[in-house]
C-alpha cells in the first residue's frame, strides 16, 4: 500500500472517528478539555503507527485506549486545574445540563476500570470479547465490571431519569 493511500485511509478514519472517540474519552475522564488533548495525542500516535492500527480489529478502541493511557503528564496537567466538584464538572466544560451532567457526574464516580469498560462496551459498542481483549482482562471480568457499573449508574441516574420522564 502506498503512502498516499495510507494517508487517505487515515484521513478518512480520523474524520469518521474523532467525534465518537472524543465523546467516549470525555465520558470516561469526565473532562472535555483533557479528553480533547488526550484524543488528539492518541490520533497522532495512531498516525505514527497507522500500518499497525489500520489492521487492528477495533481501531477506534485502540485510539480510546491510547487516549486514556496518554496520561504520562496527566497528573501534572490535572494538578494545574482547580478542583471540580461533582456538580460543576459538566458546566465547567460546557457539556450541557440535565441527564448529560448527571451522566458525566455518575461516570466520574465509577472506578477507572469500570469507566473503561463503559467506554468500550457501551460508547464504542464493542462486544464483550473484544472489550476484554482490548483491556487485557477476561470476558467474565468485563461482565462483572459492566454489571457493577450499570448498577451504580442506575442508582445515580434514577432520580434524574424519573424527573425527565415526567
Amino acid at each position, binding site marked *: 500500500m502506498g503512502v498516499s493511500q495510507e494517508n487517505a485511509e487515515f484521513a478518512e478514519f480520523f474524520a469518521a472517528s474523532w467525534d465518537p472517540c472524543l465523546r467516549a474519552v470525555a465520558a470516561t475522564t469526565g473532562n472535555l478539555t483533557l479528553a480533547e488533548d488526550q484524543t488528539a*495525542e492518541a490520533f497522532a500516535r495512531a498516525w*505514527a503507527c497507522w500500518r499497525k492500527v489500520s489492521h487492528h480489529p477495533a481501531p477506534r478502541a485502540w485510539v480510546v485506549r491510547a487516549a486514556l493511557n496518554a496520561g504520562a503528564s496527566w497528573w501534572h496537567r490535572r494538578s494545574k486545574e482547580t478542583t471540580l466538584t461533582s456538580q460543576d464538572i459538566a458546566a465547567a466544560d460546557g457539556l450541557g445540563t440535565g441527564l448529560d451532567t448527571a451522566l458525566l457526574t455518575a461516570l466520574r464516580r465509577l472506578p477507572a476500570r469500570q469507566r473503561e469498560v463503559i467506554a468500550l462496551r457501551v460508547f464504542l459498542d464493542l462486544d*464483550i470479547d473484544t472489550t476484554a481483549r482490548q483491556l487485557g482482562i477476561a470476558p467474565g471480568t468485563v461482565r462483572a465490571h459492566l454489571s457493577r457499573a450499570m448498577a451504580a449508574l442506575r442508582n445515580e441516574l434514577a432520580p434524574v431519569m424519573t424527573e425527565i420522564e415526567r
Partner: protein
Amino acid sequence: MNHDEYPADSALIQELRDSLAELPVPGRPPLTEITSRGRVRRRRRRTRLAGLGGAGAVASIALVLGLTGVFGGTPARGTQTVHTAAFTLTSYTNGTVSLRLGQLFDPAALQRALAHAGVRALVTNGRYCTSSPAVTSPAIDAVLPGSVTPPNGVHGILITANFPVQPSQLAPSVDPEAIAIDPAGLRPGTELFIGYFDLGHTVLADLLYTGAHTCSSRQSPPGDP
C-alpha cells in the same frame, strides 16, 4: 442488546448512548496538526530504537541476572527507575525518590516498589488513613519536601492532584511533575501514607505513626464534597 447484559440494563445503555451522542463536542482539529504530532512521535520512536542497539547488550545482561520486570528501564546515570502502567518511581543517587503517577492505581505494586526504594509506606485505594495525634508538619516536610496545606481544614494533608506541589518548593534535581520523597527524613515509628480516591482522581500523600492509625472508606479525601 447483547445477551451478556441483564435486560434491565438495555434501557440504561441506550440512554447512555443517546445522552453521549447529544453531548456537544468541539470540532476535530486540522488533520495537519495530528500528523505533525505524529511525525514528532515517529521521530522519537526511531531515535529510541536506534539507541536500543547499543543498550541491547546491557539489557540482555540484566535479564540474565534476573533484573527483569519493572526495574532497569532507561534511568538517568546513577538512578534506578521502576516503571509500570500505574506509576514511575525513580530513586536518585542522593537517596531521594520521585513518584509520578499514571491514570491507573495499583496500591500493592506501589507499596512494594516504595519498600524496595527504602520508603516504608501504606498505600490504599479508596481508604483514608490518619493517626492520632497526627504527625507534625516539620516531620512531614522532611519526607515530602513539596508539602502544602490545602484549605480543607484537615491537619496533615499535604499533596493531592488538586493541590499541586510547587516546583519552586522542590530541589532543582527533583522532577516537578512528580511527588518528591526523601526516605532519610522518615523518622522511626512513622510511615508514608499514599491514598487514591476515585472521586476527582485525587491522590493524597501524608505521614502516619506506624501501628497507631485508623482507616475509613472514602471516595474523596477529607474536605472534598
